[in-house]
C-alpha cells in the first residue's frame, strides 16, 4: 500500500537518512524504535511531505514518483491520505475540540458541515472525548489533547496513520489513556506506523517492529524476532540498554 525505496535526506552536511526502504501493508501496525537521532521522526516527516526528501521514490495512494520532485498535486494527494499524530499534539489552539476534528473534513475534504459533525462526534466518542466538544485545547490535559489529536487524524479515514512519539510529551500517569486508544485502533484494523519508546506497546500491539540507528534500518521483523532474538549487535545493545532502564 505504501512503498518507500532508497530514501535519503540530509540537513546541511549531515546525512540523516541513508537510503531507507520502507513498506506498509494494509492493516499493518508498525512500530519504529531506535535511539534518538536515528532518523525515525525525519523518516515519518519525509514520507508525509512535511520535509522534502533528497532522493528515493514513493508509491502511495496513486502517487508514484521521486520524493524530491513531487508535484503540488502529488503532495496534496499524499497529505489527504495520511493521518498524523504529533508529539506535542499541535491541536489548533483557536478551535474547540469539535472544530479541531471538523476543520479538515469541511475545509480540505469538502464534506458538508452537518455530516462532518456526525463523523467528528463519532471519532471523539471513540477516543472518549465526546464530553469535551466545546473545550479549547488550553483547557485540556495532555492526555485529553492527544486523544483529540488522534480523533482528528482518524476522522479523515486516512489510509495510514503516523504517530510521532504520541506519548513522549505526556505526564507518566496520562500515557495509559492514549495507549489504550491506540491499541483499540490497532484491534479495529487501522493501518498505523508508530514511533514509540513504549516497548510494551511495540511488543504486544505491533505486528512488525523496525529498529533504526544512524539513518538506516538495522533490523526489522516481528516483535518476537526483534525483542527475543535480535540478530544484529546494534539492536541487542539498544534493547539491553532500554530494557535495563525499567
Amino acid at each position, binding site marked *: 500500500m505504501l512503498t518507500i525505496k532508497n530514501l535519503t535526506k540530509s540537513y546541511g552536511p549531515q546525512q540523516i537518512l541513508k537510503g531507507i526502504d520502507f513498506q506498509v501493508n494494509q492493516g499493518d501496525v508498525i512500530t519504529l524504535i531506535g535511539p*534518538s537521532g536515528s532518523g525515525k521522526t525525519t523518516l515519518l516527516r519525509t514520507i508525509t511531505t*512535511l520535509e522534502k526528501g533528497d532522493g528515493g521514490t514513493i508509491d502511495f495512494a496513486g502517487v508514484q514518483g521521486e520524493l524530491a520532485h513531487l508535484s503540488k498535486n502529488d503532495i496534496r494527494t499524499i*497529505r489527504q491520505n495520511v493521518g498524523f499524530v504529533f508529539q506535542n499534539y499541535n*491541536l489548533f*489552539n483557536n478551535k474547540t475540540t469539535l472544530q479541531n476534528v471538523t*476543520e479538515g473534513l469541511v*475545509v480540505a*475534504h469538502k464534506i458538508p458541515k452537518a455530516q462532518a459533525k456526525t463523523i467528528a462526534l463519532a471519532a471523539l466518542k471513540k477516543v472518549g472525548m465526546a464530553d469535551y466538544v466545546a473545550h479549547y485545547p*488550553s483547557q485540556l490535559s495532555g492526555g485529553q489533547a492527544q486523544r483529540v489529536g488522534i480523533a482528528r487524524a482518524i476522522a479523515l479515514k486516512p489510509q495510514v496513520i503516523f504517530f510521532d512519539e504520541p506519548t*513522549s510529551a505526556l505526564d507518566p500517569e496520562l500515557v495509559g489513556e492514549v495507549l489504550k486508544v491506540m491499541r483499540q485502533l490497532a484491534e479495529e484494523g487501522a493501518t498505523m506506523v508508530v514511533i514509540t519508546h513504549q516497548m510494551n506497546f511495540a511488543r504486544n500491539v505491533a505486528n512488525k517492529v523496525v529498529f533504526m540507528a544512524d539513518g538506516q534500518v538495522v533490523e526489522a521483523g516481528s516483535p518476537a524476532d526483534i525483542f527475543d532474538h535480535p540478530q544484529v549487535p546494534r539492536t541487542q545493545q539498544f534493547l539491553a540498554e532500554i530494557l535495563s532502564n525499567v
Partner: protein
Amino acid sequence: MSLDTNFMAQVFKTAIAGVPVTLQIVLVALIVSLPIGFIFALVRIYRVKILSPLVRLYVSFVRGTPLIAQILIIYSAFPSFLATIIGKSAFSIDPINYAYIVFTLNSIATLTEVFRSALQTVDKGQLEAGLMVGMAPRQTFVRVILPQALVSALPNITNATLYLIKNSSLAFIMSVKDITAIAKTQAAFSYNFLEAYLVVWVYYLIIAYAAELLFWFLERYFSRFQRTTTAKSFNWHLFSFKQPTTTVAAVQYDPKKELVNHAHN
C-alpha cells in the same frame, strides 16, 4: 499660586472642537496603516525578493528618527515638492493632510514590527497540523495562524494606538487645529499656560482611556479560546500599581514535561 478655574472651563469648551481633529488623525492613520503594516510584515516574514530589504530599510529609517524631525521634514519639503507638480495651490492644502501622511507613515513602521513579531509567535506545528489534515498552506494561514497571531498582536496594537493618540498632539507644529493647538492659542492670549495644559492633559487622558477600554473588549473577544477558569476583567482604576492582566499563553510551559522528554530520549 492659584488656578484660574473659569479660564480652564472656557478652554475646556473651546478645545472640544479639537477632539474630532485629533480623533480623525488617529483613525485615518490607523485605518491606512493597519493593512499596509500587515502586508509589510508578510513581505518580511516570507522574505519577498527586493521588497523585503526595502521594508526593512523603511522601518529602521522611521524608527531611527525622531517623530518631530519627520514632521518638520514632511511639512517643509512636501508642499514645495507638490508645488512643482500642481503649482501654487499646493500651499493652500489643509495641513491636516500632512498630519495624515506623517502619522500614517510612522504607524506603518510600528505596526509592521507588531504584526511580524505576532505572526512569529504562532508555533510552526500549527501549520504542520493544518497540512496534515489536508488543508492548503493558505487555508491554514487564514483559518488557524492568523486568528492566533491577531490575539498576540492586539496588546501591541493597543500600545501603538496609545502612542499615536499622544503623538498626534505634535500636529500643532503643522498648524493643525487639534486639542493641543487650540488650548495653546487660548493660553497665549492671557499667559495662563498651566491651566490650558492641564485641560489638554485631561482630554488626552480621556481619549486614551476610552481607547484602552475599546481594545480591552477586542482582546477579550478574540482571545476567548485562551480563557481558562480565571476570567479577566478590565482594570477600571485610572492610576493603579496593579499589573495589567496578561494573556496566558495557550500552551503553558511545564518543566515536568521537559524532564519526561529528556528521560525518554
